[in-house]
């Protein structure tokens, strides 16, 4: 089997990929780098548990090969905060009980982080009234934009509450 190599910036650290070109970014993170915070829920881009940010944009890391990311900046849940130093959104997820089993949670948090930037940048969604306008940060907008991240425990309304708290504290800041 041919091996290939690439250098990825993962959470600010240069990491060498040298391996099977069939390996997904998700499996590279989980198996090779031991960054198991990024979860595998379906391996088919259907659940969002594997969401990470690549150059600031959220993707399903199961649908992307590691070798494709030479030079890319990857941010995983481990790059967002630690139990000793929680990011505001992680703190909000804990206090609003934005999870039960916790398996979809890193994906929800990575997705929400990138989503808030998309919203601030004025990207429209399927529920935006007029695509040229700045989208209103309504619950409906948040729900639509988070719908790629499934939660079988059904913590959805708590997740939206957590995201809203972060939005409000950022407005206040």
């Amino acid at each position, binding site marked *: 089997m041919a091996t290939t190599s690439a250098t990825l910036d993962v959470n600010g650290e240069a990491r060498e990929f040298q391996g099977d070109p069939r390996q997904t970014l998700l499996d590279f993170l989980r198996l090779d780098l031991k960054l198991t915070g990024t979860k595998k829920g379906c391996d088919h881009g*259907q659940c969002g548990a594997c969401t990470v940010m690549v150059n600031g944009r959220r993707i399903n890391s199961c649908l992307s090969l590691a070798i494709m990311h030479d030079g890319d900046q990857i941010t995983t849940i481990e790059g967002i905060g630690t139990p000793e130093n929680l990011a505001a959104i992680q703190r909000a997820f804990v206090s609003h009980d934005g999870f039960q089993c916790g398996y979809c949670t890193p994906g929800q948090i990575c997705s929400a982080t990138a989503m808030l930037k998309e919203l601030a940048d004025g990207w429209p969604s399927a529920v935006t009234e007029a695509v040229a306008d700045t989208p209103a940060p309504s619950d409906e907008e948040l729900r639509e934009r988070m719908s790629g991240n499934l939660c079988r425990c059904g913590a959805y309304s708590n997740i939206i509450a957590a995201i809203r708290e972060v939005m409000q504290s950022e407005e206040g800041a």
Partner: protein
Amino acid sequence: MSDSYDTPDQRNLLDQTAQGVIGQPLDRPEGALKACGQATYAAEHDLTNCAEGVLVGATIGCGRVVRIHRDEVLAMPGVLAIYADQAMLRRNAQGTAGEAPIQDVTTVDYYGQPVALVVAESFEQATAAAKALRVDYDVTTDADFDPAAVEYEPSEEADELGDLDRAMDEAAFSIDRTFTTEAHNSAAMEPHASIADWDGRKLTLYGSFQMLKYNVKELADSLGVAEKNVRILSPYIGGGFGSKLGISHDAVSAALAARELGRPVRVTLTRQQVFETITRRSETRQRLRLACDRQGRLTGIGHEAWVTNLPDEGFAEPVTQATKFLYAGQNRRLALSIGRVQLTTAGSVRAPGEAVGMQVLEAAMDEMAEAAGIDPIEFRKRNLPAELPGEGLPYSSRMLTEALDRGARSFGWDQRHQQPCQRREGEWWIGMGVASAARVNILSKAEARVTLRADGGVLVESDQTDLGTGSYAILGQIAAEMLGVPIDRTDVALGDSDLPAGAGSGGSWGATSTGSAVFRACEAIRATLAHKLSVDVDELRLKDGLANDRPVTELLDKDLVETGRIEPGKTMKDYSQASYGAFFCEAAVNAFTGETRIRRMTGAFGFGRVLNAKTARSQCLGGMVWGIGSALTEAMEFDHRTGRLMTHDLAEYHVPVHRDVPAIEVILLEERDTVASPLQAKGVGELGICGAAGAVANAIYNACGVRLHSFPMTPDKLVGRLPDPVGA
């Protein structure tokens, strides 16, 4: 003290204690780990030199494996071995089985059933090899794949009282309806996974399981090894909902391969394999007959259900379980029949019985109330029996009336139009529906160890699992409350089969049962402390590390360790025990397309003492989200020619997503049920789903005037029956 719970504990000790943490909406202690991706799930334990196994599923629905073309795959890069061992599981274990399920994968019972395991150095190599593996089959051509085309036989003796046929004939009002529900999959976010690691004769298995004390027995029996040589670790579980009650294919195949290869092996089911091979909730057909007099008092109630399973499976979805105790009616017939099909094993999925039984009963109750011309809330309240029909047993406690009333006020039920098609907003018909919630309450045998350390801290230990249910939080709160220790000095260790055997997570009994064991261990420690202080235990006051105003550490020259035990006793037999509640739903039905959107929901629930208001609320929320899925989208759809599951992933089997779920209001009613447990708490893990989809169905009717008798209520079923969208 006897282990069994024979007489109601009316001391309500947790109301006398002083720490003030019981019931509080505290954050989960493991919350920060989960939010940072640092909670370690089954597939994530880091073992050196771990090989990767991928299961190969059958591409026939029924038959035998006649040849596996091993050689061409063994020659592929990195491939270490192919297993098609007699010991590999053909079916996963049912909940609380405690013994090996049906093994031997040379026979194929259902489409997708594992027939081989391919192990390779890397996951990519194993995946490629598993895909390449050719298997020849001898196909059984006359297998039954269609539940509508098989014979059914009684699964148990029918529960009959009086004369239902006569009650129907003589009723002032009656309905006779047949409903259908589709098969469901738990679809927990974490696929089943196991890493097996042998040290000589001892196996350590990192897995994702709900009930370790049973899982150890199942695994040991499947492998033919002694139970003492099997240790299971499941500190974090990415959702279970019944699907991880028993061991499954990954555990046994990983253990067999690891033993042969002399190195750790990881096996993770693919998402498709989770759908195809892990226990489903049976589809159901349910006939509901209700009869009432002119005053709207039920005189007859009939609930007959038809479900399926594979041959030789003892489990039959107990559809009529809540109908037994929920409503009055002196003429009754409850019956359950089972048919045998070659489809994925049927077993427990969140709230077996009530989940699909209650939604149908509650939809029928709405029709009955309408036929009798009575508000559906009033109709329900009018038909609550004074004692268990036919048995004369008292109810331990029942907050159903309160839940209906409180929920109605908060939801704004008085805004509902009695007639359907009265409220239209743009393209949408808007309607409101109500349903009762009910789920049997069960106390299960449990053990837990509590240590009051010489430094004043507390450690709670049990093999109890936390599926997201809140075990880590509430077991700590019980101990902190009982021993007067600050919550941040209370540690909880769970999910290790070497620890005392808790009740396990399932049947909504984990918190109350294992919690009661923790309670009793703490009682023993309290007795010791009282003795050391030379006071009566009733005079003991424990708070913030002080025992009757003395630092508790002054009383401790060493750790105090106690094991608490509880078993179900006479209280389980002498009373009808259940948790209750009520659901309210506002739904919008598109007048043109038949699409249904849930606009808001309220649930009010009474389940005894609330142990943690935050995690309990989340359980209720989650259950209601399942209700939305069951009402509108979830269906395992099989090709009845081949037995193949066509909705075998999350793009085809539609669980609710963010946008399907509105803000949901949850009202927790304060209640003490002294019969249920010494905690005065009952189960809550499944209550939120039990009837929720009925409220949705009733809201759909109230919106657009269409009564569907088929769940899920997808647009295709509604669209041809809607009123003229522009003529109204």
